C-alpha cells in the first residue's frame, strides 16, 4: 500500500485524508461500544442478582411508547441513508429534505424520551429506589446525551447541505456523522430490549 513518491494527486490526497477520518471514527465507535458494553454487563449482573424483575412494588415501564420511539430513531437512521443516497446521485434538494426529516425525527426521539421520564417519575418510579428505575434513568440519560450531540451534528449537516457545501465527490462530514448516528441508533436496540422487554 506504500508508494515510492512523496506527492500524490489531489484526489488521492483527499481519499487518504477521508480514510484516516473514517478509521478514526471507527476507532471512536469501537471505544464507545465498549463503554456501552460495560454498562450492559452491569445490567446483566444486577439483573441476575435481583430476586424478581421488575422488582415487586415498583412501577413497571411501558412497552408501546418506547417501541414507537425506537421506530422513530431507526427511521431517522434510514432517512440519513436516504440523504446519502440522494447526495451521491447529486440531488441536492432531496438531500436537504431527507437530512431535515432525519433531524426532526431525532428531536422527536428526545422529546418522547423526556415525556417518558416525566411520566414515570410522576407515577413514582425514581432513580434510587431500585436498580430497575436506576438503570432505566441512567442508561436513557446517557444515551440521550449522545442523541443530542448527534442532533447538533445533523443540524449542521442540514444547514451546510442547504448552502450547497457538499458535492457528489466531497461530503466527508456527512459520512462521519452518519456513522455516528447509526451507532447511536444501533446501541439503542440492546438498550431497548434490556430496559423494556426483559
Amino acid at each position: 500500500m506504500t508508494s515510492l513518491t512523496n506527492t500524490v494527486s489531489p484526489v488521492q490526497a483527499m481519499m487518504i485524508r477521508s480514510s484516516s477520518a473514517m478509521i478514526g471514527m471507527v476507532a471512536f465507535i469501537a471505544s464507545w461500544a465498549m463503554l456501552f458494553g460495560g454498562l450492559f454487563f452491569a445490567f446483566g449482573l444486577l439483573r441476575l442478582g435481583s430476586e424478581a424483575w421488575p422488582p415487586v412494588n415498583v412501577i413497571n415501564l411501558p412497552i408501546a411508547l418506547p417501541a414507537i420511539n425506537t421506530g422513530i430513531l431507526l427511521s431517522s437512521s434510514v432517512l440519513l441513508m436516504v440523504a446519502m443516497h440522494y447526495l451521491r446521485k447529486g440531488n441536492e434538494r432531496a438531500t436537504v429534505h431527507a437530512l431535515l426529516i432525519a433531524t426532526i425525527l431525532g428531536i422527536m426521539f428526545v422529546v418522547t424520551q423526556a415525556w417518558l421520564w416525566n411520566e414515570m417519575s410522576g407515577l413514582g418510579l425514581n432513580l434510587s429506589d431500585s436498580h430497575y428505575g436506576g438503570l432505566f434513568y441512567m442508561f436513557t440519560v446517557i444515551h440521550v446525551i449522545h442523541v443530542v450531540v448527534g442532533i447538533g451534528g445533523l443540524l449542521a449537516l442540514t444547514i451546510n447541505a442547504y448552502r450547497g457545501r457538499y458535492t457528489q465527490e466531497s461530503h466527508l462530514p456527512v459520512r462521519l456523522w452518519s456513522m455516528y448516528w447509526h451507532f447511536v441508533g444501533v446501541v439503542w436496540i440492546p438498550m431497548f430490549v434490556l430496559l423494556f422487554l426483559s
Partner: protein
Amino acid sequence: MSELQPIHAAPTSFIKKHIFSTDHKVIAKQFLWAGLLFLALGGFLAMLIRWQWAFPGEAVPFVGQGMFPSSDGSITPSGYTKLFTNHGLIMIFFAITPLLIGFFGNLLIPLQIGARDMAFPRLNMASFWVFVLSQLLVLASLVVPLGAAAAGWTTYPPLSTNIATPGLGQTLMVMALFVVGISTIMGAINYIVTIIGFRAPGMGYFKMPLSIWGLWLASILNLLFVPVLGSAGLLLLFDRLFDTQFFIAGASGNGDPILFQHLFWLFGHPEVYILILPAWGVIADFLSFFSRKPSYFYKGSVWALVTISILSALVYGHHMFVAGMSPMLGKSFMLLTLAISIPAELLFLNWLHTIWKGSIRLTVPMLFSLGFVFVFALGGLTGIHLGTISTDLYLHDTMFVVGHFHFTLAAATFLAVFAGIYFWFPKMFGRHMNQRLGKIHFWTSFIGINGVFTGQLIVGYAGQHRRLYDPYEYTFIKHLQPLNEWTTYFAFFLGVSSLVFVVNFFWNVFRRGHDENIDNPWEVGTLEWTVPSPPHHHNFDTIPTVFHGPHEYSNPEVKKALGKDWLAQTEKFSFSKQDDS
C-alpha cells in the same frame, strides 16, 4: 500534484508555539513536564507511606507539622489511607501514563514512522488539555472539605461509595479518572490512525521500530478498555451523586460491589500491559542499538507483543480469586494467565539473545535498559505466584503483591522512562545530558529500586498485609520492623537520587548553546536520527523513503563498503544476499 502532508509555517506567537501548540514535539514535551511533575508528587507521597511503615505514629520530619497539624506531625490513620490511595492513582494515571503514552507516543510516532505530524493535530492538542483538566481535578480533590480520595487506588465499593468516603475528594477523583480516560482515548485514536495511515513510503509494519509496535498495541488496548473503566466510573458517580445503589449491598441496598471489581479489572488487567508495552518496545530497540546487533527474531518479538495484548484481555479474573469465584472459572483464568508467560518468555529470550555477544556500549540509556531487563525479570517471575490460585490464596493482599506490581509497573516503567529521556534528550532539546551524572543516577536508583521492592516482597511473603496503618500491632509481624526500616532507607535513598536527575535535566534544558555531534550521537538508524536536533517544525523536508528495518547493525558488508557499523533506515544499500526476511 499536491502533497498529502503539507508543510505548515511554524507558529511565531508564544501561545501558539508553546501552549496551545498542535506540534506533536511540543505536546510531547508538555506531557513530559506534566508527567514529571506528578511523578514527583506521587514519589513524595510514597516517602510518607514508607515513613509510616518504618516509624509508625512518629512525627514526620520537615513536612509533618504542616501536613498533619491535628496529630502534631504524625500521620493519622485517615491521612495514611489518603496517602496510599493518591500515591497509586497519581502514579498510574497521572505520571506513568502521560510519560509512557503521552510523551513517548507523541514524540516517537510521527518521527519514527516518517510523518510530519499526527493524523489529527488539533485532537492531539485537545488530548493534552483535557489531561491537564484531569490533573487539576486531582489537585482539587486533595484540598476539598472532608478530604481527599481514600478508597485505595482500586476505588472498590463500598469503600468508594458515600457510606465510607462521603468527601467531595473521592467524587472529584472518580471524575478525574473519567476525564483522563477521555484524554487517553483521544490520544489512542490519533496514534492508531497515524500509524496506519501516515507511515513513510517503504515503512511496512515489519519495518517499524519495536517502540512503535509497543505504542500501537498499547493504544489499541487503551481504546478498547479505558471506556470499560469509564462505565464503572459512571455507575459509581451515579451511586455517589444520585443515590442509586448499584454497588451498595446490605441494609441500604441490594447492589453488587463485586460488579465494580469485574468492570475495574476488565479494564485493569489490559491497563498493566498498556503501561508495559511501550516500555518493552523502547527497551527492545535500545538493547539492539547499544549491542550493535539486529534485534534477535524481530518478528517473533512482534508476534509475542500481539499475543500478549490479546491474552491480556482474557485474564482479569486472576485479580478476583478471593472474591468468591467459581473454581472452574478460577482455573480457566489461572491457565490463561500462566499462558502469558510463554510469549513473554519469547520476548525476554529475544532480548537476551540480542545482547548476547554484542559489542555492548554501556551508555546511560543502555544501563537503564539492562536494569529494566533485570527488574522486569523479577517482576515477571513473582507474577507467577500470584497467577496461581493455590499460592495466591496466601499471598493475596500482602506486601508481596505490592512488591510484584512495583517491580513491573513502577521499577520497570521508571527505568524505561528514564532510558527514553536520556536517549531522546539530544533530539528534543539539541543538547546532551551529562553522562557521568546519568550513570550516577542509574546506579543509585537501581540500588534504591531493588532495595525497596525486594524488601516489600520479603515482608509480604512473611505475611504483612499491604494496607496496614501500623503493621506491628500484629505480633507475628513485629519482627519485620527492622526490615521495613531498611526498606524505608532504600526508598529515601531512591528519592534523594532523583535529585541527580533533576539537576542534570533542568541544567541541560535551560542552559544556552547548541552542542556538537547532536544530530545522531548514538549512531542509530531510525528515522528521527536522520533529521537535525531538534527537528524542524515539519520534521522532514521531504518525506523519507525507507529501505531497511530499524535494527541494521554490524553487517560486515556495510562495514566493508561504508566503514561504519550501522545503516540508517533511509540509506539505500543493496546487500548481496537479502537477509531481512
